[in-house]
């Protein structure tokens, strides 16, 4: 870990101003990812702006949104309090499950909602500074492309990068049609649709998301949803807990009797961002909620995948996971 200046910031305004004027400064919230990466020498800020002392009212509240059932999540609320907040548990249980599928109790007590969106990939070539990685050092090449890419993307990757986005929470947020609220140093607010927040790697894998320099996430807003009683977050992994996803599925079904008014599905562990399964959603719209229809939708979605040498299994696993998650959503998550 390189030497860095440690600075408390007290207002959103001063935080965004400092990060704009100090070119190599970064925000410190829960620290669960950035300190890990600084110890690995992957992240090398020369200043950390500790935003955890910002006022509760500015950025740490979980409050009911303007529409009944809508919720605003403070960016600095931690994962545990978010997952267990009654507004979330009762109205957005999918988010509760997704958050609780990630990391460990200790980490969720530290990690913040904003920080969760700012996580970096767990690609081992990104994490090891002695390996090539276009995300870490643009132009150095992708170690994973011809390497051990079992954990890597099957959708939306580019010749520059095949990393996947590691968050579970974000997969649920993609389904919940969340909006990310950000502030900049001029005191302006901006809202970004969640599905536009993260990027595909394209030519610039060093950019994980569409935040502009100097912007700070202040809140994540969730509109009311109509599938609170028919949703499920399924995570498939190499061990039962405390492991990143091979494939995960967030599924929500808005039903009219046994008819699907609308299905919302997103996949984790398969792309550089939470992957909305739009083709599957489209196919399910207006259909009966049957195993055969789930199967057809999953096939249609996963058949678009472009697997790599060691992750072909994710195509079949994705199909099965989508069907299973939809089944579970039908049963309201009962196992």
């Amino acid at each position: 870990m390189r030497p860095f200046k440690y600075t408390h910031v007290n207002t959103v305004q001063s935080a965004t101003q400092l990060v704009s004027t100090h070119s190599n400064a970064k925000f410190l919230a829960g620290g669960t990812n950035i300190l890990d990466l600084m110890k690995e020498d992957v992240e090398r800020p020369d200043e950390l702006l500790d935003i955890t002392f910002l006022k509760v009212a500015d950025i740490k509240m979980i409050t009911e949104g303007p529409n009944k059932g809508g919720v605003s999540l403070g960016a600095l609320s931690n994962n545990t309090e978010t997952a267990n907040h009654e507004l979330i548990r009762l109205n957005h249980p999918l988010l509760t499950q997704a958050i609780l599928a990630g990391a460990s109790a200790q980490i969720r007590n530290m990690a913040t909602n904003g920080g969760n969106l700012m996580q970096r990939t767990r690609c081992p070539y990104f994490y090891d500074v002695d390996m090539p990685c276009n995300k870490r050092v643009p132009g150095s090449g992708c170690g994973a492309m011809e390497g051990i890419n079992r954990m890597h993307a099957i959708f939306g990757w580019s010749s520059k990068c095949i990393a996947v986005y590691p968050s579970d929470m974000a997969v649920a947020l993609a389904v919940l049609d969340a909006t990310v609220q950000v502030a900049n140093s001029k005191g302006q607010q901006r809202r970004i649709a969640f599905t536009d927040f993260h990027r595909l790697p394209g030519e610039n894998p060093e950019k994980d998301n569409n935040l502009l320099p100097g912007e700070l996430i202040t809140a994540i807003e969730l509109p009311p949803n109509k599938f609170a009683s028919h949703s499920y977050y399924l995570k498939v992994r190499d061990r039962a807990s405390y492991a990143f996803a091979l494939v995960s599925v967030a599924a929500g079904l808005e039903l009219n009797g046994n008819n699907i008014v609308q299905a919302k599905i997103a996949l984790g562990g398969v792309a550089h961002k939470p992957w909305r399964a739009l083709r599957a959603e489209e196919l399910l719209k207006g259909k009966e909620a049957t195993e055969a229809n789930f199967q057809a939708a999953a096939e249609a979605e996963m058949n678009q995948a472009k697997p790599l040498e060691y992750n072909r299994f994710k195509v079949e696993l994705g199909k099965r996971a989508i069907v299973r998650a939809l089944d579970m959503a039908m049963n309201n998550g009962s196992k």
Partner: protein
Amino acid sequence: MNQENENPDLTEDEKKLFKDLMPEDLKEIMDTGFSRRHFLKLISIAGTGVLASHLLGAEQLLARPLAQPSLNELTTAQVENGVRVSFKVNGFNKNLLVDSRMTLLDTVRERMELTGAKKGCDHGQCGACTMIVDGKRILSCLTLAASCEGKSVTTIEGIANGTDLHPIQAAFIKHDSFQCGYCTPGQICSAVALLAEAKNGEVSYVTDQVNVPKKPLQLSENEIRERMSGNICRCGAYPNIVAAIREVQSGKSVEQKWNFAG
């Protein structure tokens, strides 16, 4: 005294579960998630006197003042980007100058002679460094000391109440919930915090229904397993860790499973 009003959160199931407990136990369980008195009873049944020597040992060990730990002050030459920070450790106020890079784990271990918390991975992947900060379990290896200003930190050295072991500590001994012992301080801090989380009604990934209002939870084995999965134990003491926590959380004796045959 009207017990119903005393403990409005108690469900019928929980009442059944605790029916052999005294009203005082019930109150204590509601307040803290466990019953000390009832627990000691369980121990004395199970320990057949062997444990007495341990408890004697406990008194001797813990009778020594909980190390008002010395602070190894660094010179300014030794510190780059020094940050002066004040926080409580096991109830004692600490004020010290730290390198901005220094983690809470390294600060407590290298500067305060509190070496109970362990460095197993230093990257948030094992849980051996778990401490309780402001009532919540956290990973001290991913916490900067500089960011602890004004906080209250509890390490394994601060878990016992004077000369009384915390029931989780006693249950870990009874159930042999460790072998090498290196992950144990983290496991115990984690388990102590878990009791409060359950009392607070926090759900987990293996909870069947999460879209229900919060109420104190009686944890199944699988719930304890999931909630303790952030603490890796390479010796494989997991079943014994689960047994210890289950016993404390439920206030009911949990059986050890071994048999002789042949």
